[in-house]
């Protein structure tokens, strides 16, 4: 029997596996459309939330205890130590530096909690999505739209509170155009305003959501296709298949590629969390300093 004949069936299984389904019935016939159903992606999102909050609460308690001990005069316990503490502290410091670099020393620290939440939640969720059977909130467009919407609300809110409604709208037009003669100001200014309006309020959140979704979904599909190849070509898993040297070789090559792609997906999990965080920071920065350009 030709293993390639089984491929479409496996691909269909894969797409079904990645669909948004109710969590208690993973083999439900149709993908979920309604908003108020606990889906498999929601459950895995909650698991990611629990994992990352538990880690941070544990470390925060440890640091609090160390600080309390330090006040009694025992200097040896001043610095909280341990791998977990070091890792999370490095992560928090990384986010803090990012916020100060991008947004500025004055307004940056205010947004560290938001940016940190985005980064660590997306990172944890992406990592959980790499466990076979696990799901990442980035693997469905609903999850990424929710995250992008939060980011959008924050930067629009910051823009309005910092510059006022009209100030923010006026800042969409470059200052050079505002000093031109009246006719040019109305014609060119109106055109640029339209372009900037669409790019700021529609394209920004859309690309934020789609970027995360597209990268993770494509990654899951690639990993799934390579896994399907391994399962198809190694004859133990399909009884009807005759063992052949060529088949096993193709399976072995697919397995090596699967491992390489898996390593690459771990890298993508980091990069996408970082890109989402830094873009949110850049958008907030453009709102904070809107009146300056």
């Amino acid at each position, binding site marked *: 029997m030709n293993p390639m004949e089984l491929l479409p069936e496996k691909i269909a299984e894969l797409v079904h596996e990645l669909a948004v389904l109710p969590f208690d019935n993973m083999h439900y016939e149709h993908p979920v459309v309604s908003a108020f159903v606990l889906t498999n992606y929601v459950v895995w999102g909650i698991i990611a939330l629990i994992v990352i909050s538990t880690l941070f609460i544990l470390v925060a308690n440890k640091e609090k205890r160390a600080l309390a001990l330090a006040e009694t005069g025992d200097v040896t316990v001043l610095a909280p130590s341990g791998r977990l503490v070091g890792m999370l502290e490095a992560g928090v410091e990384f986010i803090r530096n990012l916020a100060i*670099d991008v947004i500025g020393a004055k307004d940056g620290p205010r947004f560290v909690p938001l940016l940190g939440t985005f980064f660590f939640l997306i990172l944890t969720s992406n990592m959980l999505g790499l466990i076979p059977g696990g799901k990442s909130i980035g693997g469905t467009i609903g999850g990424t739209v929710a995250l992008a919407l939060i980011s959008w609300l924050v930067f629009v809110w910051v823009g309005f509170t910092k510059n006022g409604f009209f100030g923010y709208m006026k800042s969409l037009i470059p200052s050079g155009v505002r000093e031109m003669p009246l006719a040019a100001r109305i014609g060119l200014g109106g055109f640029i305003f339209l372009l900037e309006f669409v790019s700021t309020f529609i*394209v920004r959140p859309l*690309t934020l959501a*789609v*970027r995360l979704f*597209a990268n993770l979904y494509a990654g899951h599909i690639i990993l799934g296709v390579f896994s399907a190849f391994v399962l198809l070509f190694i004859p133990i898993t399909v009884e009807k298949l005759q063992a052949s040297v060529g088949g096993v070789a193709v399976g072995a090559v697919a397995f090596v590629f699967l491992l390489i792609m898996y390593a690459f997906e771990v890298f993508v999990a980091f990069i996408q969390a970082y*890109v989402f965080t*830094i*873009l949110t920071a850049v958008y907030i920065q453009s709102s904070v300093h809107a009146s300056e350009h």
Partner: protein
Amino acid sequence: MEAGLIAIGKGLAYGLAAIGPGVGIGIVGGKALEAMARQPEMAGRIQTTMFIAIAFTEALALLGFVLTFLL
């Protein structure tokens, strides 16, 4: 027949949308590498800016990706 044409259209939509951003991200990455080799002490800030530039370039390819699913 029609389903086949739609499938070809999906492939073309994403493939064509990926050409420009592919070249663009290559330029961004290459230039950032040049800059980092020239001034290693600025590597951190260059990297940050590079990721931002890549993200903006990539947006065009992503619109093609979305179109593939919408078709």
